[in-house]
């Protein structure tokens, strides 16, 4: 497979302001005042000059030794906290700003979309802005002419195409801007959090377009905070923190780890069980069916068989066992209990057949316990690795509206002939 983006040891230093020294005496203050232009000059000069000393106190490393390769046709998601260096990385890759060290090689024609509507001028008409914005993004006039009707149609602004953009509603402006961007046809595309625009119908359109882009064999780098979107679009993901790559791999794993880090690790090893009391201990867990590519990843909306393996050292009579499932934020999602367990020494497995695991994609953790009448608590464990739900998100495209569950559903609008019948009990809908 050929390589589209080859980033080698990219580092970027930014200069942040430094606190000015204050003088206490009147003479000192006057001297200070007189030297302001000189200090200003030095400060402004330093904006573009970096000395050999990398640990200067007023600089920050926005990126530090970032190395990765993207193959042609890959759709890669980038996640990370605010200020983690995602946007800087995109800026370096798209040549807006040079790396302080290292280099990024791009093989192919690249368009970056860090903002929709760059260069829009309120006084110009929709048509003029469309041409302007298109050429800024790297299209030629001929390309725009060819796609003009399609773009206008996508944005849904036919009637207003010759109206100055300042008379547009903000929604219309954004739709027009995005429509231009959506019709770019570069080989490599770098997109920063721009899909969350417009109303729901428009968002669906955009997602559809992004899917198309992903399937058309183009290379895409996509920054988003919408995890469901990334899960839907990307095969692999990069998690950046503190200017460095934390994890680069399959989307489910990377996003799972990222979400887990965001929620903190406070539910790790809540309890420790004293070894002396241990009659049995849990060894691990896996997914038995459907045969997963990885033993902790669920990729189906259908039935799932989960096994918890344990080693029993001494016979257990009248035991009982709890199973809890927590989400990445430590909220209990589901729990169950089994009792009257009789276990002989040896290896055992608790096997759960779940008709489905209709959870929204993300990382979850199992907590298993085992008690018996004589000893009380025998073992209690937070299972490692975590359960990763990597199903296709089927709910609302916006994370905040998608809810906790995720399952296949159908929708159709039908004419309802029964509601008008008087003999049925009236049910009123309250708003």
């Amino acid at each position, binding site marked *: 497979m050929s390589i589209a983006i080859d980033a080698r040891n990219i580092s970027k230093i*930014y200069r942040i302001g430094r606190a000015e020294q204050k003088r206490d005496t009147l003479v000192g203050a006057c001297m200070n005042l007189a030297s302001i232009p000189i200090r200003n*000059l030095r400060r*402004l*000069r330093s*904006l*573009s000059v970096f000395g050999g000393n990398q640990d200067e106190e007023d600089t920050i490393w926005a990126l530090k030794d970032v190395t990765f390769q993207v193959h042609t046709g890959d759709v890669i998601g980038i996640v990370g906290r605010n200020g983690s260096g995602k946007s800087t990385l995109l*800026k370096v890759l*798209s*040549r*807006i*700003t*040079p790396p302080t060290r290292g280099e990024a090689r791009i093989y192919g024609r690249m368009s*970056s979309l*860090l*903002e929709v509507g*760059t*260069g829009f*001028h309120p*006084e*110009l008409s929709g048509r*003029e802005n469309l*041409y*302007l914005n298109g*050429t*800024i*993004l*790297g*299209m*030629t*006039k001929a390309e725009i002419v060819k796609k003009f009707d399609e773009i206008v149609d996508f944005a849904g602004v036919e009637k207003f195409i010759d109206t*100055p953009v300042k008379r547009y509603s903000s929604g219309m402006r954004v739709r027009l801007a995005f429509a231009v961007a959506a019709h770019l046809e570069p080989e490599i595309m770098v997109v920063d959090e721009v899909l969350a625009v417009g109303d729901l119908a428009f968002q669906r359109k955009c997602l559809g377009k992004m899917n198309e882009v992903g399937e058309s064999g183009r290379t895409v780098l996509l920054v988003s905070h919408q995890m469901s979107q990334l899960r839907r679009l990307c095969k692999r993901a990069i998690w950046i923190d503190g200017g460095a790559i934390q994890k680069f791999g399959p989307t489910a794993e990377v996003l799972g780890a990222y979400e887990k880090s965001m929620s903190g690790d406070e539910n790790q090893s809540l309890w420790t069980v004293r070894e002396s009391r241990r009659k049995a201990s849990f060894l691990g867990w896996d997914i038995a069916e459907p045969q997963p590519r990885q033993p902790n990843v669920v990729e189906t909306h259908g039935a799932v068989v989960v096994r918890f393996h344990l080693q029993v050292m001494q016979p257990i009579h009248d035991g009982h066992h709890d199973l809890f499932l927590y989400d990445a934020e430590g909220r209990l999602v589901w729990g169950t209990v089994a009792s009257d367990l009789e276990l002989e020494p040896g290896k055992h497995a608790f096997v759960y057949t779940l008709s489905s695991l209709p959870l929204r994609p993300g990382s979850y953790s199992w907590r298993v316990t085992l008690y018996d009448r004589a000893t009380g608590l025998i073992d209690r464990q937070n299972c490692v690795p975590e359960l990763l739900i990597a199903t296709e998100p089927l709910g609302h495209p916006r994370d905040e509206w998608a809810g906790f569950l995720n399952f296949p559903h159908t929708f159709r609008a039908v004419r309802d002939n029964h509601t008008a019948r008087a003999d049925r009990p009236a049910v009123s809908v309250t708003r």
Partner: protein
Amino acid sequence: MLPDRKELWRYRDLLFFLVWRDVKARYAQSVLGVGWAIIQPLFSMIVFTVVFGSLAKIDSEGRPYAIFSYTALVPWTYFSNAVSTSTGSLITSSGMLSKVYFPRLIIPLTPLLSKLIDFGVGFSILFVLMLWFQVTPTLNALYIPLLLMVLMLAAGGMGMWLTSLAVQYRDVNYGISFGMQLLMYAAPVVYPASLVPDAYRSFYALNPMVGVIEGFRAGLLGTTPMPWDLIAIGSCTALLLFVTGALFFRHKEAAFADVV
């Protein structure tokens, strides 16, 4: 390390639309519209005619002072507006600079072209004035496109130098309109170049606007024979300004997005 011409050519449509935006947006929602392009040189001419022509009685080489000064004001207004807009251009387009990649050189070159519209309008008024004052142009007027080239080279060179500096040191941007006012007196706008002592003539001609303005006067008003010595020296400065400006811009452009 000259600018990548192939890349510039690929983005030629962007240059066109930026010029279009400049022209259209400048006069949008104004009553006089493009009439503003006439007002600036016309009113300067009236003031100069009263102050320098009638009161100070500066020699206008046998032509009415009004048309004498207006002929200089058309290229000077272009130069002054193109350079000051070009100087501020990178700062004005900081949004674009930090969000998308394109050949940065397009930004300071845009005013060079968009101000040509104003130049054209001002120039056509010059013809009206020539009819009014019954001045016949000489054959040397055919050299005007050449002079315009020198004018654009000089303005472009200054623009590239100053905008690269202004992006980091805003002082340049604040000082430019004041600087342009002063520079006007270093060019033969309100007085003829013949007032400058011969000993200093070559030094004076280092200002590319000297050759351009005197060339305009010689061609259109026939005040003097075509001053080729002034034009030759000025063209060299203009070319030097342009080439060094492009090199300096090239040298600085990578950091624009970071310092703007």
